[in-house]
């Protein structure tokens, strides 16, 4: 049963990550792939606050989210003035740099990772309680982001993403909006990091590298960019699929390449056959260029 709980918790965490990542790159149009580093910042901050400073775990998780949010504002202030390719390069640099710092600090556990992280709920109420907690946070995240994206602020986001100049001409501040989107998305990723840290109780810098970025990007693209449910379907499918494959009991020499081929094929198939992803975005979010096609 614990295996099932572990898979559900991971799915819930990937739903938070994919939904918040979709909020940043899809709805916000901010081309950044540093999302896993905010996940890492939340995980490390929460783990260290609870383990070394005795902060109650629930507050530590919230603080982890807040610290990730503040870190994202720091990155945003310096790099959101530029956009497109430059932001992408800036975000990669921030991700690699932060992970290098974590690897080289003694108090973060260095490259060997951080262990003995205090657990939360599982010892007192059982793992089911933690599953409920993670799923509840995932649902709240999705609903919150849906509410924002489909409300008046969402319409403003759409306008800003499609034509920043026209948006500014209307007297709106695009920079503030970009920072808000980036901070909210990253803060939610930080929250997911805290939830991860206190269930699995071990974190290492290698878990938050560029490979994680590409996994998240695949979830969002395969699921459907700029749709509420697309990234959720993508996250659940891409988390469940590798697990399901291992139960087929194929020889390891087949299993490893099969997983790689499956992921690559999925991305290629979606690029050619269904570029809008499993769940297509509604007309308003498809953007002008896509509408014109």
């Amino acid at each position, binding site marked *: 049963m614990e295996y099932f709980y572990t*898979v559900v918790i991971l799915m819930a965490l990937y739903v938070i990550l994919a939904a918040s990542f979709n909020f940043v790159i899809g709805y916000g149009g901010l081309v950044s792939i540093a999302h896993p580093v905010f996940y890492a910042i939340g995980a490390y901050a929460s783990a260290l606050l609870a383990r070394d400073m005795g902060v109650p775990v629930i507050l530590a998780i919230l603080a982890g989210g807040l610290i990730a949010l503040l870190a994202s504002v720091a990155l945003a202030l310096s790099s959101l003035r530029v956009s497109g390719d430059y932001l992408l390069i800036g975000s990669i640099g921030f991700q690699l740099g932060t992970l290098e710092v974590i690897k080289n600090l003694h108090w973060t556990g260095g*490259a060997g990772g951080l262990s003995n992280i205090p657990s939360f709920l599982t010892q007192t109420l059982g793992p089911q309680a933690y599953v409920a907690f993670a799923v509840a946070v995932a649902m709240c995240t999705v609903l919150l982001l849906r509410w924002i994206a489909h409300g008046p602020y969402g319409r403003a986001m759409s306008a800003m993403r499609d034509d920043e100049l026209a948006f500014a001409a209307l007297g709106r501040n695009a920079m503030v909006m970009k920072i808000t989107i980036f901070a909210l998305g990253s803060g939610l990723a930080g929250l997911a990091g805290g939830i991860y840290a206190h269930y699995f109780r071990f974190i290492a810098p290698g878990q938050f590298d560029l490979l994680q970025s590409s996994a998240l990007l695949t979830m969002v693209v395969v699921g459907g960019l700029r749709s509420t449910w697309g990234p959720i379907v993508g996250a659940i499918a891409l988390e469940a699929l590798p697990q399901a494959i291992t139960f087929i009991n194929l020889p390891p020499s087949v299993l490893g390449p099969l997983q790689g081929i499956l992921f690559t094929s999925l991305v290629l198939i979606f690029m050619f056959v269904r570029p809008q992803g499993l769940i297509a975005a509604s007309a308003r979010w498809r953007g002008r260029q896509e509408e014109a096609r």
Partner: protein
Amino acid sequence: MDATTISLRRRSLLAGAGAVGIAALAPSAAKAQAATPLRFGLAMPLTGSQATYGQDQVRAAQWAVDEINKAGGINGKPLAAIVLDTQADAQTGIQAATRLASVEKVPAFVTAWSDVVKAVAPIANDSKVVELSVGANSAEIAKLGDYVYTTFPLADVDITAVARYAATTLQKKRAAVLYINNETGTVAAEIYRNVFTKAGGTVVAHESYDPKATDWTGTLLKVRIAQPDIIHIQGLVADTPQVIAQLRQLGMTQPVSSYSAAYNPKLIQQLGAAANGVIATSLAPGVNNSPAVAAYVERWKKEVGREPNGLPYTQYLYDAPYLVAAVFKSLDDKKIAITGENFRTEMLAIRTFELPLTGKLIFADDHTVSKPVYLMEVRNGAWVQAAVVG
């Protein structure tokens, strides 16, 4: 003859036939009962960057399982290994260990690679399933909890031996330490520095490199400027030969020492003449120390066409099922249920195990094991035993 009699006779006949059927089925049921395998987990990297080593280690463990079963199993019950892939990655390892503990319900599992061993420790402790670390050498492994044990000596054992050997036997005074910036490198590099300094030497360069690095020129030039008279490299199996090759290309002719990751036939193939003088450690007896090891290596050459990658590690993996089988047998003899808790209690009660390829293993109270360190040196294109410490 009335209808009742016929009916009774039919019933008796059916009952008789049923009884014969059950009686006929009984031996096979008993046989099936007897053949229920005693299972343990094997969570190793079968894919990913470490697969070359993980697959050889799994092959070694599987050979041991087959040998045990050929010899009659455990009181007639076969031993079975449930093999899952960890990719030497913490997250994948967590999923594999969770599945072993909660779906496969094994009482013990074998795993390796420091990141994975540390990441899955909470699962072992919470599920009360014994985690046997076989090959990882992070010093932290001894402190991971009640259900985490190692059969492999941790970093302090061989690094201490090689540092002391450099300072005392080889009379080197100035050492440079070049290490990979991960758990394997940082902790061991620190141990080397402390031991070498205590033995009267000076560490003139202490330089790290990124695990993903493919060029080490900058770091090596820093080492060259420091003018050491020995260079210790604490890297991984994959990068150590490349670092040595580049070091020689830069004209550095000093002796090079490393640890068990460098003790690999591939190193000589990759480096050629540049491998001469490289000192490495082995924590298991070699072909010249044990006929069993010689036969084991011969089997590799015959069946696989080559020596195993990371020979000592595969020796430990070969021995792991023998350890598990010994605990299973003891529990079965005493008719004690095979659970993780009982496995741990019985393993500690037995405490000393005589294993075919790595010799005597004693579990210490502090979750460490001590073994002799074999210092190996490449001479004329072959690994030769230079000394045995401990």
